[in-house]
């Protein structure tokens, strides 16, 4: 505990956020602080059994209006490992289904005196909306097509742990950039730390407007992965085919998926990442999921560590400021 007390002074100086709504509001220092604490928790996770209770007495509600397994469980795991009371809101059978308004539902939950509300919603901006009137800390666990900050932070942690640094790297993000909150948050975070980001994929899913993020847009994918330290694949959703963005999964795999053809164009020692859940055999060939250069499983573990760090910083850092 002494260790944390000694850190409070620093947090006060660098962490000025009541919520984690996105990567966009964060500074480079904010991100580095989360990574620093997350690195600590990442080591902690190697121990078994794990005892820590610095957040005991705090409660967290996971409010997921969209299906999620890994993100919700990851938050739940993170909270519980730090001694928090964790509640999961389930849409099915909820008062929302009985006709209660969204605003009233979240107000009711907040009135139960939750300290942290972790929210995922299909509409961009819902975390901001909640933060505007709820007394608790709001953590964005994915809002529509806009941001997924903890995913970006865990990706940074996984990269730094593996490559030893998180600046001056080149990261190629491939696939459905248009609909991806992961791509938006990750690109923003990478660029804030001085990395370069290149987007590629089917032009319908990598429209010119992606340039708004300040990343490059390079076609074809073979050219985009050249010189990249990390090749980050996004999950391709069948709905995008039904909506007409690309013709078939077969063609997607052939031209935009990670297989031998793309691997030969990647530089020696480049790593493969994916936010999950993976469509094996679609955006990534089966054997590359567990390939030696794949960080996909490491990303999952880093997810817990990053969420521990976020909860810690929000609750402990704020206390002293």
């Amino acid at each position: 505990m002494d260790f944390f007390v000694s850190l409070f002074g620093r947090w006060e100086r660098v962490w000025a956020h009541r919520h984690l709504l996105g990567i966009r509001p964060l500074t480079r220092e904010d991100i580095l602080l989360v990574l620093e604490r997350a690195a600590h928790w990442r080591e902690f996770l190697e121990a078994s059994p794990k005892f820590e209770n610095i957040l005991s007495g705090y409660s967290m509600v996971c409010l997921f209006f969209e299906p999620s397994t890994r993100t919700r469980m990851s938050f739940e795991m993170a909270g519980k490992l730090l001694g928090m009371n964790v509640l999961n809101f389930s849409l099915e059978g909820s008062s929302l289904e009985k006709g209660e308004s969204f605003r009233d539902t979240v107000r009711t939950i907040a009135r139960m005196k939750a300290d942290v509300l972790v929210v995922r919603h299909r509409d961009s901006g819902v975390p901001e909306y909640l933060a505007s009137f709820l007394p608790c800390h709001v953590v964005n666990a994915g809002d529509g097509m806009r941001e997924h900050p903890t995913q970006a932070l865990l990706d940074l942690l996984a990269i730094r742990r593996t490559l030893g640094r998180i600046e001056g790297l080149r990261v190629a993000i491939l696939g459905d950039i248009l609909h991806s909150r992961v791509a938006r948050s990750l690109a923003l975070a990478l660029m804030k730390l001085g990395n370069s980001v290149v987007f590629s994929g089917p032009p319908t899913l990598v429209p010119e407007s992606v340039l708004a993020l300040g990343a490059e847009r390079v076609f074809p994918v073979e050219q985009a992965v050249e010189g990249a330290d990390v090749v980050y694949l996004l999950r391709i959703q069948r709905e995008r085919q039904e909506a007409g963005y690309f013709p078939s999964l077969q063609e997607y795999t052939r031209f935009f998926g990670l297989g031998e053809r793309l691997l030969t164009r990647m530089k020696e020692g480049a790593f493969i990442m994916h936010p999950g859940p993976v469509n094996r055999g679609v955006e990534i060939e089966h054997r590359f999921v567990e390939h030696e250069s794949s960080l996909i499983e490491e990303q999952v573990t880093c997810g817990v560590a990053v969420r521990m760090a976020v909860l810690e910083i929000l609750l402990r850092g704020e206390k002293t400021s």
Partner: protein
Amino acid sequence: MTRRILIRRGTLVLPDRRMLVDGDVLIEGRVIARVGRGISDPQAQSIDASGLLVGPGFVNLHVHFREPGQERKETLETGARAAARGGFTTVLCMPNTSPPLDHPLVVQALRLRARALPFTNILFAGAISRGCQGKEMCDYGLLKEAGVVALSDDGASVDSSRLLYFALQYARYFHLPFILHEEDSELSREGHMHEGEVAFLLGYRGIPRVAEDSRLARDVLLALDTGARVHFTHLSTERSVTILRLFRGQAPLSADVTPHHLLLTVEDIPRFGSLAKVKPPLREKRDIEALKAGIADGTIDILASDHAPHAPEDKEGSFLDAAFGISNLEITVPLYVKALVEDGVVDWIELWRKLSYNPARFLGLENKGVLAEGKDADLTIVDPQTEWEVDVAQFESKGRNCPFQGWSLRGWPVYTIVGGRVVMAERSVVDGEFC
């Protein structure tokens, strides 16, 4: 031993340089070895081209060879022979076959068959939508790997703006250009000829100009927005030309016409009956004038055929039941000479450019459309003077559905050389081991 052909004392047409020069051409194997004056080669097979025009072979962006599925109308072989006779050394087959060219396996099978035919280079356009149904994109990457060089739903227009919007964006990844047939099917439904007085008097429902104009306008805007390479085929209306002229400088747009839309009008329908039933429909004099003006000023930069052969039974019986289409591949060039050169719309150089250089550029065929050393030995030799009558009985094409029977025309191709082989000599297809 390398096969050599020496074409002597011709008037050489150099469409890329917009020049006519007197000279000789020596072909060695599959390439043009020399272009110049006073070339001699006693071992070479010699063609006396005095009084004839010698230029790069014609490239036709729009033919229907009906394979697979409608072999009673045409086959790759009969179509290829017709192309040789018509002076076309490269043709692009439209994908509205049965099944359509919407799957790589169909394309691969056809390409294998096409490769065995020496008469012309047969290229294929893949379908824009599965089954040409206008609902879902085809696998353009896989089609490109199978060998398609362009995309089209010809025979129909893409009704769904969303599909075309995505297709234009998506196909850019694979560098595939589009060839669009412009027809709003809602407006053309049940129409059998140009909408207007003639249709009214004859008692047929019409296909209004705006069916083409409005669809073309939409697609010009989609092309501008997506930056896709878009070519509009068989323009038939005055406003199509106006719209295209307006936007042509702003995007890589191009267009073609057919010879029948320059030579016939809706007034000719009573005379020719279902032989003149075609899509888009034959329009009016003012449309012809507008098309010619577009050709003259370069708005329309490519001349094609829309060779649409049919079996006799498809054109017999009532006008309403007759199929749309005209078989014209063997007479396309003399028809254009009549419509454009004799009418003073363009000169021979410009005509040749729109028949070879421009379409070759559109398809990205770097070694075609140019008469120069090192280029493919695809050449056409044309007799600009002698008049012959159109005789559909002599067509190599199975399609005899041609309203130009008996027309007396000048400017016939008299030799066609494909890949260094003479495939047509003196207006007859050369079979077997001729040279």
